[in-house]
Each structure stands twice: as structure tokens, then as C-alpha cells.
């Protein structure tokens, strides 16, 4: 399996599917500690990405991610639009014009994405945000890539599993950023919707390579 432009297109297509399938779940999670719009916004954003992919086929993974960044930035709104837009843009920049992504490049792209989210949103680990999914994913991808034993699929899987565990880890946290922070202690006991959508995106990356 090589992570090339075809993989990237399949990844984004699976992201759109995942957002449509989990739209109601994300709305419900957001209803508990936010304002009920996350599922709707992510679904709208990735449907727009899908439409863009139908218009033209990107030549590199980086080009696909850059197109995704610009589309999410302009279609999603809320905090998620600029945050995911920045994440995809930084990942695209990290990948450059490469035709294929190796394990180290994937770990580097994830790190660039996470750093972009942190720079824009100013959230830290433990604030009950998407950062709590991204940081463990970056660490796991980096460890798998540096270990040398994992092929590229292994690195994708490591990142996705860590992101999913990271999303679950937000359950007991008290939100300190975003709209959930207004709830204070009442935000504990709910999973962060942005961490869940982040895990869905990284899981779709595995599906596209399988």
C-alpha cells in the first residue's frame, strides 16, 4: 500500500461518509455541552469537499489536503472551520509536492496539523478539545514511525487508535476552551464532539489504505 493521491482522495471520500453517518451523533454530543451544530457543520463541509473532488482530481496528497483546507475554512463556520482548515493546510504544507507519503512524512504531517490547531485555538492538552485526540495521535504515529518496524498502514492505525482513545479520555475532563467552557464543571461526563470528529477523520485514513 502506498499513500498517494488516490489514497488521499479515498480518505477524504471516507471522511465525508463518516461525517454523514455520524452527523446525528455529533449533533447530540454538541447538544450536551455546546450548541448542537457540529455534526451539521462537518457534514456540510465534507460534502463540499466531495463536490470539489468531483470537479477535479488532485495530483498529489498535498494538493488534495490543501483543497480540503480551503473548502472547510469557507464552508464549515463555527470554530471547527478555521481549526480543521488550519490543520489540513499545515499538513498539506508539510507534505509539499511529494507524490507518496512514507511513515515519517505521515507523522510529520499529523504533527504540523496538531501544531496548527494549537496555534489557532490556543488550547492545551486536557482542555477537553480536539487537541486531546490529536496529541496522542501524533505521539503514537511518531513512535510507530521511529520504531521502524511499522509499515505505513501500521502508522495510520496507531494514530487512529490513539485518537479514539484520546476522544474517550475527554469524558471526565472539565472544558477550558470553546463553548463547553461556559459550563464549567457541568461539562464533565460528556465527550468532546471535536475530539470525536478528529478520531473519525484519522480512522477514515486507515479505511482508505485497507
Amino acid at each position, binding site marked *: 500500500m502506498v499513500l498517494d493521491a488516490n489514497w488521499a482522495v479515498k480518505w477524504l471520500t471516507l471522511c465525508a461518509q463518516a461525517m454523514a453517518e455520524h452527523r446525528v451523533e455529533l449533533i447530540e454530543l454538541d447538544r450536551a*455541552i455546546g450548541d448542537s451544530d457540529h455534526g451539521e457543520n462537518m457534514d456540510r463541509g465534507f460534502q463540499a469537499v466531495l463536490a470539489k473532488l468531483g470537479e477535479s482530481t488532485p495530483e498529489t496528497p498535498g494538493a488534495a489536503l490543501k483543497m480540503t483546507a480551503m473548502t472547510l475554512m469557507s464552508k464549515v*463556520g463555527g470554530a471547527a472551520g478555521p481549526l480543521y482548515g488550519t490543520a489540513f493546510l499545515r499538513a498539506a504544507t508539510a507534505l509539499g509536492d511529494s507524490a507518496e507519503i512514507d511513515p515519517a512524512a505521515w507523522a510529520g504531517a499529523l504533527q504540523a496539523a496538531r501544531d496548527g490547531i494549537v496555534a489557532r485555538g490556543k488550547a492545551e492538552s486536557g482542555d477537553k478539545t480536539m487537541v486531546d485526540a490529536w496529541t496522542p495521535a501524533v505521539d503514537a504515529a511518531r513512535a510507530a514511525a521511529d520504531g521502524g518496524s511499522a509499515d505505513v498502514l501500521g502508522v495510520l492505525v496507531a494514530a487512529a487508535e490513539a485518537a479514539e482513545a484520546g476522544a474517550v479520555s475527554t469524558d471526565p475532563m472539565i472544558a477550558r476552551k470553546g463553548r463547553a467552557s461556559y459550563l464549567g464543571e457541568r461539562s464533565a461526563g460528556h465527550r468532546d464532539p471535536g475530539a470525536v470528529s478528529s478520531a473519525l477523520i484519522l480512522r477514515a485514513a486507515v479505511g482508505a489504505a485497507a
Partner: protein
Amino acid sequence: MKKLINDPKSVVQEAVQGFGLAHAGLVTVSEDPTYITRKDAPVAGKVGLVSGGGSGHEPLHAGYVGRGMLDAAVPGAVFTSPTPDQILPATLAVNSGAGVVHIVKNYTGDVLNFETAAELAEAEGVNVRTVLVNDDVAVEDSLYTAGRRGVGGTVLVEKIAGAAAERGDNLDAVAAIGERVNANVRTMGVALSACTVPHAGTPSFDLAEDEIEIGIGIHGEPGRHRIPMENADSITNRLMDAVLTDLKVSSGDKVLLFVNGMGGTPLSELYIVYRRAVQVLADAGATVERSLVGNYITALEMQGCSISVLRLDDELTELWDAPVHTPALRWGV
């Protein structure tokens, strides 16, 4: 869910179309990307004022586009901030060369999207200043939250900064007036019932028949705590206590008192709240110099209200009284 809509996905688009038809003499509507501008924009030599945010708070913001208030409003999806691809063209459309002030309610999404749009506008040579509105005393302003939300005070910032721009103040002066209003206004809200976002289809939070939520924002997001239902005077006392303590209102202060409906509360109830709020201010030795009562910044059909108190000085009072002609606010012209 019972709503006067055709399709949850077309709510904002169809509402904006109707708004444009109803107020064709005052505003111009751009549908794609969606934004509303003052009919005569850009006004030569005048600083442009742009605000925006999620839909569902009508008449905010589009209702305040017109002479003496906003030059452009940018509506997002319901309770979702607009995106830079809307904010940027709205900013460019109202820039006469004197620069543009963005009035932004302090929500993470609004801040990030307006910040991005301001960077893009600066890259195109437009000077942009941002006035952040964060008047909600229900939220502790600390490192542990996203900071105070922008709520009722937004209407007052838009009116008074709008008047400053209309009289010819320069970019920095208009922004400074907006910041002065924000520094002198505090707001606290209460919800008696939740609201239903059209695409979600169910109420934004669950509130029992005999419960109320104190410290509610304007997005149907839950507030600070909930308590058993009380009468209007007791609820008003709670809200006023929080507002006056935070604003440090003292004897001799002159204020503007703004009782705002959340969309599902009759005007008669708002006046009952207003009546008690005036008494509380009198007890504190403050005088109500100006008033505003009605549904000016709403949360769809939510039942409840917010109370805003703005400490006035002579200049702010003069700017409040200045002529305004918009779909939702009009006097002196």
C-alpha cells in the same frame, strides 16, 4: 418540532431573501456568499462597520444595517459563525478607504473566522480594527474559559459605534468608542425554556417545567446553574445583582437599561422585568437615563430575557440619541 419553515437546510437563505424583499429601500442582499449591506454603501469618507455571527438572533445583525448603525452584516448558519469567504467581501464592499471596524461577539468560532477575514482584508490593503464584545457576567473571565460571551451589549455597541462612524469619527476613534461601550456594559440572562435549532430538530437542552436556567447565553447553550422557577421580581433581582456587582454601579451613575427578550417572551413580561430593574437601580442610587425594551438579540423561540446595564456619559448618551434608520431600530429620522 413545529416551525414555519420549508426545509431546515434553507432556513437562513429563505429568511435572508424575505428580509431583502421587506427592506429593499434600506439594504442590499448578496446571496452567494451571503451578506447584507447598507443600500448606499460604501459611504464616502465614512468608516465601515461590519458585524456578523450565527443566525437565529434576529433582528441581530442584519436588522441593524442602515444609516447610523452597521454598514454590513454577515449571517452564518443557525448559531454558527459566518466564514471568511463571506466576511471578506462584506468588508471590501463597505470600505470607502477610511477603514472598517469588525464588531465581533466573543465566541471561539466568531473570533477565529473574523480574525482570518481581517488578515485577508489587511492583505488587500484595508485597515481593519476589531471590537470584541464580551459583556456576559454569567461567565467567569479566566484562563479556564473561552472568556466572557458577547450578548445584549452587542446591540448597544453597534448603535453607539455606528453613530460615531456616521458623525465622521476616524477608524481608531470609532473602535475606541465601541470598546468604551463594551467596557461599561454588563449583561445577565435567564431561560425559562430551551430553543430548537432547525437542523437539530430537538430542544438545545432539557429544562423541566418548573426549572429555569440562570446565566443563559444566546445559543441555547446551557447557563451556569439551574434553579426552581421563581416570580419575575426574584429573577430580576438575581440578574440585576450580578450585573450591578460586576459593573460596580454606584450612587449618582446614569445608565441605559436594556431588557431584551430571547424570542419567546411576551413584551408584557419584559416590562414587568423592566419595572423591577428600575427599582433595583433606584435603590442603588443610579438614574435610568435611557431605555430599550424588546426582542433585539434573540435565541430563536427561547423563553427568557437578558438585562443589560450601560453606564452612560454625555458623549455616549448623545451618540445613543443620534438618528438611526435600520429595519429594526429607527428614531430621529
